[in-house]
């Protein structure tokens, strides 16, 4: 036991860097997903037929393949083909971000479609353009409705980052595995790694739930369901 503790202390700075990278991957996936997923949802609801079709194809592609396959396709295929020399870390951010956008667009689309027609009608009757109505009325409501579902993406995305081990991103699992092969201590080290994931999950969800409580509007959405 003392062995394990001293090993962990020795390797702590190395592991901490891995945790930071894992968190960056998670944040990038959630952030890029939000940045691209929200416009995609709007496009799918309000866009022309071609646009809706293209977004549909995109979503179908990125949700239809395992993360690992996507990572390999981009790491060994897309980026080399484009002759861009990229570190695995960057490939991972792009893949997780694009994949996050596909999943999140569907969360936001469901939210937009659950808003009653009357909200748009009322906004337009006051003289708002369609864009103003979307920007000031529909979008804020979409965010409120989507927030719980969006929060649930966090644990999914966080645990998915471990797959980046396969292309050699130096995140938490990759570094844990290196320590294992260096010290020949197996289970205790993996257990410590598991503990870190559990903790990150718990801490992140607590933050998101706090946000949900903070932005909650009394009675909002109760008559819509």
């Amino acid at each position, binding site marked *: 036991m003392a062995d394990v503790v001293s090993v962990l202390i020795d390797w702590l700075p190395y592991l901490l860097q891995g945790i930071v990278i894992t968190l960056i991957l998670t944040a990038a996936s959630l952030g890029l997903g939000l940045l691209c997923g929200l416009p995609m949802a709007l496009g799918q609801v309000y866009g022309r037929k071609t646009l809706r079709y293209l977004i549909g194809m995109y979503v179908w592609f990125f949700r239809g393949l395992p993360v690992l396959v996507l990572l390999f396709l981009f790491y060994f295929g897309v980026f080399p083909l484009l002759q861009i020399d990229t570190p695995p870390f960057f490939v991972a951010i792009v893949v997780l971000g694009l994949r996050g956008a596909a999943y999140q667009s569907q969360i936001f689309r469901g939210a937009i479609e659950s808003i009653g027609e009357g909200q748009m009608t*009322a*906004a337009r*009757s006051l*003289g708002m353009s369609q864009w*103003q109505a979307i920007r000031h*009325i529909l979008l*804020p409501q979409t965010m409120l409705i989507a927030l719980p579902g969006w929060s649930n993406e966090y644990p999914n995305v966080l645990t998915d980052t471990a797959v980046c081990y396969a292309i050699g991103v130096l995140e938490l699992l990759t570094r844990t595995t290196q320590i294992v092969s260096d010290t020949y201590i197996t289970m205790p080290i993996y257990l410590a790694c598991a503990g870190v994931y559990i903790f990150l999950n718990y801490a992140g969800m607590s933050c998101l739930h706090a946000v949900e409580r903070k932005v909650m*509007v009394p009675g*909002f959405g109760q008559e819509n369901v």
Partner: protein
Amino acid sequence: MDAADEILRVEHLFKSFGATEVLRDISFSVHTGETKAFIGPSGTGKSTLLRCINQITVPDSGKVFLRGEEVTQAGQKINLYRQRIGMVFQNFNLFDHLTAVRNVEIALLKVKGLSPAQAREKALFELRRVGLDDKADLYPAQLSGGQAQRVSIARALAMDPEVMLFDEPTSALDPELTREVLEVIRTLAQQGMTMLIVTHEMRFALSVANEVLFMENGTIVERGSPNEIHDGTGFERTRRFIGQMEEFR
């Protein structure tokens, strides 16, 4: 009344949904300070008519003029015309994520470009007008139906519209809440607001309107002042309809 007083003119409006003809050749004009009440059986196109006036529903043919300017086929300018035509809906359609005062001020901020201070002042003024300035910070879900509808009236009034459209403003309300909303509308009529009201409240329509238009199957069948409808000849169908509606009360 001369043509200069004319605020709104509707000419030969037609609208179909699929095979159903909802509006068939509707024409009328509205003068300053007038209140017109549209009555008739459900599904005769009264609500569609109101929605065609501000182009929330686009008519198949026919024209709508606001002070002589054509509202139909206005393109992007339609947003300017809509600011001048207030609308109140059966289901209130308050913005669920905003407090009462934010509901009233949002279009002042985003459409009219008022400063936050000006918009707030105007919004509170309008809420006071409908007797709800003490509910300014409540969300729609925290208001009764009657209060919510009064907020939505304040929201429409805040734009200083030249004409107000009421689309069955009390149909979603319990009888005891109907009263407070009708009182607000009655006060507006007394203050000289120009209004078109679709309603099933017969006694209210007859007491507040200058003219009552009885619609059936997408056409205006009979029209006249409350007195004419009460005593005149040629209003048999209107009187029969009003009688039927009153029986249920």
